[in-house]
């Protein structure tokens, strides 16, 4: 069966999962954290029959201060750069134990969760290894808040051009981050894995369905999830959902899937809002001049066009 045809139970407003959250409240995330919102929705969508592996980072620290834990599913944290490798070990163990009849015979997805630093920088090797090896019940979720927030807003390779961070500060000789955001979904897709998708918490049903689809499909899956950080982005906490919407509607962060190498844009943005409208809400971009914003707009236009071409050339 083509991965695109693998059935899964869809989340709708009517069938929205009820009951306790998999990630319990009382954790220590900042006010207005878009990352923990995305994480909570993703986990809620999967129910309780999965195993979670966290990389070190905001989501690990804020949910697991001994002797408390927010996790209502089996959860393992080992270190920063190796969530993919740890999850590989768990996944392989479950497979062989199941085959030998030592545990119940049902698929248990293993979900690795890491930030953009733990994915695009220090964890890239372990992730590449895991994707290449083809672990069947393996879902990797990158919660991308576009910098090292847990250590105090340092730039990562996923920090967008122009953003002010504590290690890419704007100054008389600098516009802030001077490199373009690393395209992690493309890197994941280049491994030829069955499922890659992007998601944003403002489009919560889309987000929740993508992890269900990832769990249903056999093979490594990679989800790249936009995760706004009001603290690090110097933004009002109540704007996390709003900016999660604007980032999609401005074509900066398009929602799409790559299924067996075939591209589908889940939300076509025909009348995009200017990127300036997105940037102006966030203090990290405040120093940018109109010509910088134009540069960003041109890049966004180009990347979206490329995506449309991919979707046209390799449709599902």
């Amino acid at each position, binding site marked *: 069966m083509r991965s695109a045809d693998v059935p899964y139970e869809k989340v709708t407003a009517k069938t929205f999962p009820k009951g306790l959250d998999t990630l319990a409240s009382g954790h220590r995330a900042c006010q207005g954290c878009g990352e923990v919102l995305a994480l909570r929705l993703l986990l809620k969508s999967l129910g*309780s*029959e*999965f*195993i979670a*592996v966290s990389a070190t980072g905001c989501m*690990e*620290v804020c949910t*697991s*201060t*001994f*002797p408390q*834990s927010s*996790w*209502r*599913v*089996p*959860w*393992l*944290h*080992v*270190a920063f*750069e*190796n969530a*993919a*490798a*740890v*999850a*590989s*070990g*768990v*996944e*392989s*163990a*479950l*497979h*062989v*134990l199941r*085959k*030998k009849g*030592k*545990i119940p015979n049902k698929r*248990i997805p293993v979900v690795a969760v890491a930030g953009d630093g733990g994915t695009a920088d220090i964890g890239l*090797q*372990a992730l*590449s*290894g895991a994707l*290449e*090896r083809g672990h069947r019940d393996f879902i990797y979720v990158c919660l991308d808040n576009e910098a090292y927030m847990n250590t105090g807003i340092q730039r990562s390779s996923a920090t967008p051009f122009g953003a002010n961070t504590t290690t890419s500060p704007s100054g008389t000789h600098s516009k802030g981050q001077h490199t373009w955001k690393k395209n992690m979904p493309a890197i994941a897709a280049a491994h030829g894995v069955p499922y890659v998708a992007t998601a944003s918490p403002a489009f919560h049903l889309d987000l929740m369905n993508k992890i269900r689809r990832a769990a249903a499909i056999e093979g490594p899956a990679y989800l790249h999830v936009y995760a706004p950080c009001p603290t690090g982005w110097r933004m009002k906490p109540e704007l996390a959902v709003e900016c999660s919407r604007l980032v999609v509607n401005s074509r900066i962060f398009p929602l799409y899937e790559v299924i067996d190498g075939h591209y589908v844009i889940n939300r076509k943005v025909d009348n995009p809002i200017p990127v300036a409208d997105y940037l102006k809400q966030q203090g990290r971009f405040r120093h940018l001049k109109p010509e910088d914003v134009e540069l960003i707009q041109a890049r966004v236009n180009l990347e979206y066009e490329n995506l449309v071409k991919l979707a046209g050339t390799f449709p599902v």
Partner: protein
Amino acid sequence: MAKKPIGIEVSLAVAEAVKLCDADVVAAYPITPQTHIVEHLSELVANGELDAAYIPVESEHSAMSSCIGSSAAGARTFTATSSQGLALMNEMIYIAPVLRTPIVLAIANRALSAPINIWNDHSDIMSVRDAGWIAVFAENGQEALDLTIMAFKIGERPDVRLPVSLNIDGFTLSHFIEPIIIPDHEEVQAFLPPNEATVKLDVANPISIGLLANPETYTEIRKATDDILLASKDKVIEVFKEFGKAFGRHYRVIETYRHEDAEIVLVTMGSISETAMTAIDEMREAGEKVGLIRIRLWRPFPVEELKAALVSAKVVAVVDRHMVMGAPNGPVCLEIKSALYDALNPPKVFNFIMGLGGRDVRRVDFKTVVERSKSLVKGGQSSFEIVGVYE
């Protein structure tokens, strides 16, 4: 009827032991001189002789990370490495014991860079000596196979649940073909119970492993691991005894050779001990009162056993195979000195470093050690000496 030994390369014998133990998961990355172990395991899995998941990870860091994940999920887990591979694993090596994930790690001991060198010494394992692992040193191939089997039993005991490293000297032991008795699968099954992980990743009973500990709990969690590691010595001894009963080959945490009336006692670890014994025989014939203590259990360090064995000697000559930089003594000597420090009339302890980066350790080197020790008794020794170094 007693089983007959067969000629087999020691690395392959270790892999055969892993097969006999029905390991569930092997996650490994190639590095010389460990490779023959995991090559053979891959073959056993490919041929269906071992029903395990073989994870060909992209680095040793990921090897140990995967092993921790696999062990936390309740699988019997094995990996192997050497030198730079162990150094790359270092971060994970420190995490595995505290998360209480039993893993058996065979280390074909090899010198650390720089300069890059693929040959044997003990600098790799010494870089992780304080990490919280149980660590044993094998002297020969039979011991390497037997200790592999015992390592699973020790580490997976409900009252231990710690990772275990099996140290075999790279090339000088790992690549030798030796006569080794390979037990039957049934015998090993009777000796080694299934890995009953009561605390594991299980959707029916969700728990969190690897939580953040702040200043009010970090010390206690570290101490709890050390308490378990120290207490594991008695469990190691128990398993050694059970093994002796089942297989007729008897192991102790330290071994002694002609040491009862010895005035000078050598202390060694690993395969050079056999060379040392030959040298001792020759020196005894020449009238020297020399003997040997070989440390098999390196961690937890067998303080009481060594104290009892060494306290009556006049001189103890400790051999280290690790170049300790910027300090007066190598790691083995440091432990021996601290074990003997509060003895009433402690022997003189001298420290000799030899066999670095694969330099041959010969009988004559042990004779040099004894001669040097005899003259040092008169004048003392402020720090280690390197045997046979060209200056």
